[in-house]
Every structure is written in C-alpha cells, then in structure tokens.
C-alpha cells in the first residue's frame, strides 16, 4: 500500500472528504484515532456543517470521540479552580501551559484536544512552596524510586508528576520549558514576566501569544518524542492562525524567539506547519528566522520530520519511518542532556528495565 497521511488531508480540505469511498473513511478513522485527532476532525467537520453528510458508520466514531474533550473541558475548569485555591496562600500566580491554558484562555487550539495532564509554570524559587501547597491539597508525587526523584529534581524542568489522591488528576509542575541540562536555555523569568491574565479570573495566567507558540514549537521540535507529533503540529497551526490576527505578531514572534534562544524550533515549526497543514506564514517571518540549518542538515531533517509527523499508523509509514522515529528519539535525548550524563542515564534505565523483568 502507498503510504498516505489521510489525517492532514482531511483537516486541511474537509470538503474533499465527502467524495471518499467507505474503505478510505475506514482508514481515515483509524489514522485519526491513532493520531489522537478524531475529536478535532469531528469539530472541523461540524464547524463547516459537513458532519451530517459523513457516512453514518464513520460519523458514529466521530461523534463518540468528540465527547471526551467536551467532558474534559469541564474537568479542566474545575481542576483549575482547585489549583487556584491550593496556591492562594503561596502568593504565586498560576501560569497554565499547553492544553489547560488553551482551554482556560478559550483558544481554538483547545477544540477537540485530548490531554491527560495539567501543566503549570512557576518560578524555580517558588517550587518548594508550590509543591508543599499542592500536597496539602491532595496531590502526591507519583515516582517513588530514588533515582527518578533525583532525575527530575536535579536535571529536569519539572517535578515528578503529582496525582490527586481522590480525583486522580495529574499535574506537571514546571519551572522551565526545557530541562536544565538542555542545549537551549530559554529563561523562565522572561516567560513569567510576559504572561497575560485570563480575563474574568483572579490570579490565573497563560503565556503571551508569541511565547505560547514558541513553547509549543520547542516541545515538538526540541524536546518531545513525537508520540503525538501530528496532534501537536495541529496545535501549532491553530495557535499561529489565532495569534497572528493581532497586528505585529509576525514581527514580534522571531524577535522573541531570538531573545529566548528558540530560533531553531521556531524555524522548524513554521516550515512544517506550512508544508503539512498549509498554515499561512508570511515571507517576512521566515526571512527573520535566520537560524536556518545548513542545507544538508535541513534535507535530513525534512526526511525525518516529514515522516515522523505523519499519523503513527502502518498505512501512513514507509520503509524509512521506523528509522526516522528512532533517530528523533535519540535526537531528543541528545538535545536534553550532555553526552556523559546521557550515557549514565541510559545505563541506569537499561539496568532497571532488567530489574523489572526478572
């Protein structure tokens, strides 16, 4: 079978779907499910009034999947209130990241997005106070192994995930958007200083529009393991389309990327959202992202990302896809830590896997 990414085709030209045959719909639903994009496609179709014209067998799956984000939105609003209550006494402002931020700020990127954890960003100096306050309100650490605790606390940009003992909600408390050991070092203080208040709430903030884009880009192109690569790319697409309605956005974005040391992730973000999802990116923005990789490296990155950003489904893969995903996994670790630390970390993980198996 020829490798085809039906998901991005469906998201960019939903009208074309109506002429698809049933077996193609079948494959589209499978790829979407695998890419965690079934709810988002349902909303894209509903927005354009096309859902009623989808074959009923496929429509049933779309409608079923669309319930999850709908329910999740309510849950996120409730959890956010609980976190605000927990942090009230600490004097720390609550800055939400990613999914929860998109929901609370009422952004298009929240629509049909399914996520498991709520991410927040706090100043490193406030980490202990925040952790203690969250513990007092029922969130407990999840990693009980001493190595894991140390791994997170010494090298990572977040605490080990905290799970609420009753509601089971999981919080990722970040003090930076990249590991402390990573090559790029965006300063958290700058992000926090620019955070904007969510209208109609007290003490609740999200990152400034440019920073939201840069964080999403960094997560996808500098840090992540791309399990949800295409889903994250659709986030970036939605963020870019929405944020760029503000005048001056395309001038501020590259300037901010330079300030935060995040030009390279931004370069990739603009390149691949445009190539895969047709995101409108003006030429001026691309000129300003001077941090273009050398030609050979870029050719290699294209070969890798254009494969890894497809749905992780056999029907969308070619002979090189497994290698591309493996290389990205290695790259993400390579960018995360200096070589010696990485070697040490991988050794410990390998030994521990043996421990679990025996």
């Amino acid at each position, binding site marked *: 079978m020829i490798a085809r990414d039906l998901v991005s085709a469906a998201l960019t030209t939903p009208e074309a779907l109506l002429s698809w*045959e*049933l*077996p193609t*719909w*079948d494959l589209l639903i*499978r790829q979407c*499910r*695998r890419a965690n994009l079934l709810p988002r496609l349902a909303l894209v179709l509903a927005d354009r009034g096309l859902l009623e014209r989808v*074959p009923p*067998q*496929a429509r*049933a*799956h779309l*409608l*079923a*999947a669309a*319930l*999850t984000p*709908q*329910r999740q939105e*309510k849950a996120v609003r409730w959890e956010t209130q609980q976190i605000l209550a927990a942090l009230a006494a600490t004097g720390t402002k609550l800055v939400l990241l990613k999914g929860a931020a998109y929901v609370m700020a009422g952004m298009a990127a929240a629509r049909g997005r399914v996520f498991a954890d709520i991410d927040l960003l706090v100043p490193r100096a406030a980490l202990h106070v925040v952790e203690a306050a969250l513990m007092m309100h029922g969130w407990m650490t999840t990693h009980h192994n001493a190595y894991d605790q140390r791994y997170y606390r010494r090298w990572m940009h977040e605490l080990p995930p905290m799970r609420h003992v009753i509601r089971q909600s999981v919080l990722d408390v970040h003090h930076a958007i990249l590991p402390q050991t990573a090559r790029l070092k965006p300063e958290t203080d700058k992000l926090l200083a620019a955070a904007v208040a969510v209208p109609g709430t007290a003490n609740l903030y999200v990152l400034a529009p440019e920073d939201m884009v840069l964080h999403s880009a960094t997560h996808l192109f500098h840090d992540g393991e791309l399990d949800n690569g295409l889903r994250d790319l659709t986030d970036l697409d939605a963020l870019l389309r929405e944020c760029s309605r503000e005048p001056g956005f395309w001038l501020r974005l590259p300037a901010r990327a330079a300030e935060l040391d995040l030009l390279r992730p931004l370069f990739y973000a603009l390149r691949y959202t445009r190539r895969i999802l047709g995101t409108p990116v003006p030429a001026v923005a691309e000129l300003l992202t001077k941090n273009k990789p050398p030609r050979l490296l870029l050719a290699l990155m294209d070969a890798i990302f254009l494969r890894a950003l497809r749905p*992780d*489904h*056999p029907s969308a893969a070619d002979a090189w896809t497994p290698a591309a995903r493996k290389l990205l996994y290695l790259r993400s670790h390579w960018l995360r830590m200096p070589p010696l630390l990485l070697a040490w970390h991988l050794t410990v993980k390998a030994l521990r896997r043996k421990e679990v198996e025996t």
Partner: protein
Amino acid sequence: MIVADLSIRDLLGLLAGPGLNLRTGQFVNRIFSGLKSVGEGLQLLYADYPLSESDDFTDFHVHVERPRDLRRWFRPQVLFRFDATVPFKPLPLHHAFPMLEWGLNWCVSSHCHQYLVIHAAVVEKHGHALILPAPPGSGKSTLCAGLVTRGWRLLSDELTLIDPASGQLVPVPRPIGLKNASIEVIRRFAPGAVIGRSSSDTMKGTVAHMQAPRASVLCAKETALPGWIVFPRFIAGSPARLQPWPKAHAFMRLADNAFNYSLHGAAGFEALAQMVDRSLCFEFSYGDLEEAAALFAELRPPRA
C-alpha cells in the same frame, strides 16, 4: 453470506489473510488471526453471524496473534491487537479465543460513546427488555444464559448500550461467557446449548462461551425499550426471590456499573433517569436456575 457457509479451510484462510468481516449487531469487526483455535471457536460460536463485504466500513480491526519473541517455544503467548495498538498484556496461548471475546467487548466499551454503556446483561421478551447489571460473580451471565434458552432474546450478556437520544437499547448479541461451575450448570439446564471449548486458569478461572440463540442473532438490529432492571445475586440454596428495589438506589447502582456515565454529563443523567423511570426495579436472589427461569416467565411488564 454467514459464517456457516464457509468451510473451516476458507475460514482459516480469511483469518490468516485479508481478515474475516464479522458483523455483530450494528458493528463490523475485521478479525485477523493465524491461530486455529480462534478459527474453530468462531466457526462453532458464530455460525449464524452474517459476513460483511470487504469494501464495507469496518468499525474494529482486531488481531489475535502470537507475539514475535523468544517465547514462541517456551510457554507460548497470545496477543490482542486493536489496529496498531496493543491494549492488554499477552495471555497464555490457550486463552486465544476468550481473549478475542474480551477484546471485542473492550472495543465497544471503550470507543462507542455514542451510547451510554453499562456493564450489564440485557435480554428481551414481548418488546420489554430486562436489564441485569451486576459485578462479576453475581450469577448475571448464568442467569442470562439460562433465560435465553427459555424464550428470551439475547441483546448482550455484557454490554447494555443505551441510545441517549431515544432511550432505546441497542443489541450486540455475542456468545455468552460462562465461568467455572456455571458451565456445568448450563449444560444440565439446557442440554441443547452449544458451548465452546473450555479454557482453564484464566484470570476469571475456567471459562467457556455459549452460542447465542439463532433467533437473537437474526434480530440483532431490533432495538428494545427497557422494562425491568433486576440486580441478581446468586446465593447457594436460596429460594428465587424478587424484591422491589427503590429507584434512586437502582439509579446509583447503574451509574456505578457504567463505563462512560461521567463522559455523557447531563445527557447521561437524563438517559439513565429515564430508563430507571420507565422500568420496574428489583433485587433478585436465587440458588436454582430452574426456579429463577420460572419466576421470570411470570414477570409482568410495567404499565405503559
């Protein structure tokens, strides 16, 4: 075309090749497996089930296969794969057929949120459905198997699917899972029942599946409205006894047994409340299946 029209060779050929497009109620499952035990189980227990065309839409692509590792020779295992995802840990190879059954249940309970899905058996007579929600070990499946051999139509022995918009119950008739002593009880109760091969030492003990009555398979697209909600409890030596049960309690116990109650929010509450409202609710204890079947035969439907 139905499964019985295929020779075992053709059936195994489809399973090992392009897949068997098995229709269960309104769902189309495409099943792939290179295992003979899976083919034999399907041939015996799904004989009356229709096959769907290969260019039809498939709801669930499922594979029951041996994992590719060194355990091929040493305590071989079997894996359930849902399209490109492996949702469960592998099981011993001789649990292949029950694993397919559990996997197909999981496909419905974790994806079909267009319905409110309750963990309950559901059977129907004269247009009224009898819903039997209960935790494992309560004798729910035994009772369900007993009733469908005495004139009740099987909608499902595991999954009650409620369409929130209409309140109708949607059938997914599939083989009924029997456990441990129940297998022998049903063999004695209904000597004509077709029961597949037993698999021992599963996480539920010894399990075997009973064929769904042919009439239930033929009516697999006919929905039903709820008539009774009965919470069964098997107590050895106890007489068969139906006790009226408060509707508020029935509601809470149904919600506890639902897979996706909270996902539906207010609509889920409405659908469940409506179902409880239009049903007679009972708690039921029994020690003898014969006595239980006689009592249910006398059950009066709720007034319209």
